[in-house]
């Protein structure tokens, strides 16, 4: 087990290093930020001075070297626009994104798993077909358009919920969260539901398929032969078995929720990391883009690592397998 943990940690560090190089080279090519930073009236001399003071006159590999050394100290550079450390800008907005992604995952789980279970238990009924069709629709609807339609319906049309933004925040253990107040929930509901839709469809299909599969297994037949009530068979035996893939997929999909939050945050003007990324790309704020990508990559790698290790913990075949 310790060897497995060490090996996976080493792999994660390697992925992070390779990604930092790729991200740096890619973003390096985005464009020359000097044009943006210096007054167009400035002469060549001034431009050269600013370029040198920012270290932008060095070749790209030297810049990557400086960058790597500084990144080791937790310094990802200053934002060209805000004049603040880029890493602080991103981390400041991270709680908002994590709050949104967590709420979306919870909605997807609590709305998707029971419905999937229900459809999986009667695979040939009309209701199951209806559920299947619904999940197909959920897969097909583009996130941003759904968000806009929800705004139109619930914010503009009915006036029940705000059109966008985040409610007032309160520090919880030093992290500003908006879910402590009713206004926060009112702001969170629409964006979280929008973000949840795709994962809801996914979990719905996964649960229905897994349930259908599980109901044909011998242990279900034996449980029936023992005279256990259907509620107990489904609630205890089947649920326990289908939870493994559900937990795995939920963990892995959390990363993609954070990525897709870019779209949802833009639609709902949610002040998270994703909106920061889009705004920063628009104004060529290179350090912020790099900081966002590296922090997101680190987050993904950490999530993958945790899911892998949890899986090994849950499933002895993985733990003792030769190719783990």
């Amino acid at each position, binding site marked *: 087990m310790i060897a497995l943990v060490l090996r996976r940690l080493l792999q994660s560090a390697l992925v992070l290093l390779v990604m930092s190089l790729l991200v740096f080279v890619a973003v390096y090519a985005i464009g020359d930020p000097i044009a943006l930073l210096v007054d167009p009236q400035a002469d060549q001399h001034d431009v050269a001075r600013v370029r040198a003071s920012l270290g932008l006159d060095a070749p790209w590999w030297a810049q990557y070297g400086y960058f790597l050394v500084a990144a080791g100290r937790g310094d990802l550079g200053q934002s060209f626009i805000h004049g603040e450390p880029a890493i602080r800008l991103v981390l400041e907005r991270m709680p908002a994104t994590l709050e949104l992604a967590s709420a979306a995952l919870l909605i997807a789980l609590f709305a998707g798993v029971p419905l999937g279970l229900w459809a999986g238990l009667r695979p040939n009924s009309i209701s199951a077909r209806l559920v299947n069709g619904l999940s197909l629709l959920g897969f097909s609807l*583009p996130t941003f358009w759904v968000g806009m339609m929800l705004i139109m319906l619930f914010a503009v049309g009915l006036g029940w919920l705000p059109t966008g933004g985040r409610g007032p925040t309160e520090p919880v253990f030093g992290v500003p969260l908006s879910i402590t107040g009713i206004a926060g929930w009112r702001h969170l509901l629409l964006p979280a539901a929008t973000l949840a839709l795709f994962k809801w469809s996914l979990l719905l299909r996964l649960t229905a398929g897994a349930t259908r599969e599980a109901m044909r297994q011998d242990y279900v037949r034996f449980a029936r032969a023992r005279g256990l009530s259907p509620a107990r068979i489904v609630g205890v035996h089947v649920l326990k078995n289908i939870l493994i893939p559900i937990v795995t997929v939920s963990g892995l999909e959390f990363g993609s929720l954070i990525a897709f939050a870019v779209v949802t945050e833009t639609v709902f003007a949610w002040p998270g990391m994703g909106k920061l990324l889009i705004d920063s790309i628009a104004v060529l704020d290179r350090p912020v883009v790099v900081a966002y990508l590296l922090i997101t*990559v680190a987050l993904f790698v950490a999530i993958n690592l945790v899911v892998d290790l949890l899986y090994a913990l849950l499933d002895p075949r993985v733990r003792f397998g030769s190719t783990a």
Partner: protein
Amino acid sequence: MSRSGYAALIALTLLVGAALFAPWLAPQNPYDLAALDVFDARLPPGSPAYAGQMHYWLGTDAQGRDMLSAMLYGLRISLVVGFASTVLALLIGIVFGLIAAWRGGWVDALVMRIVDVQLSFPAILLALVLLAVTGPGLAKIVLALVAAQWAYYARATRGVALVERNKDYIAAARLLRLPSWRVLAHHLLPNCLPTLLVVAALQLAAAISLEATLSFLGIGLPVTEPSLGLLIANGFQYLLSGRYWISVFPGVLLVLLLVSCNVLADALRRLADPREAAR
């Protein structure tokens, strides 16, 4: 194929037909700025034009463009981007997937490791970064979509090819001492195609949706030739003041396109997998 599958096929054919014949079907050329009339800006559906006999059945946008025409042309761009990126990504994925399955060993390990790492990152982030680097443009967005999607095809191709390569007909072809490329292209590949077609239909919908999303975020296609995603984005600011038609109609068309792709993919999957159909 199921009845819903046929319905989806018909819908998709109609949509592709409408896109192909857009110049003849559209009441107006939406890219011809001279044909637009500022007096006709933001008219609700069914309004008559300020000058002339025309009626704007689906309303007009902020430039006074007929929404129906803009949608037909936008559909055309969305489909071109979707099909071009799907075909390119499919070709690249097939080549890498077949090579990985055929050669095995370190080649297989290398290709699959790259695929694994790439697929652990959401396609949207990859495409976003690539487009931020290259800037907006039709060819560039196709490139970004291909880069984001080839790995799905490579993985699917390798999966099927690994099963197929152990079958007798491959052994027979090799016993005939046919060259490797011939066994791959004429014997192995045709038998992998049914599965790949299903993946392609699903990924076509994903590509069109991704393009619309990127254009909505303002980093996909240039403003001069709006795709469906950009049309929806343009109407966003007017949505809050109740001018729903600029966003809603292109959105409905986009959803119709995506749903028919996905339903068709679902029907094809059942067709390709008899176990699934028997259920």
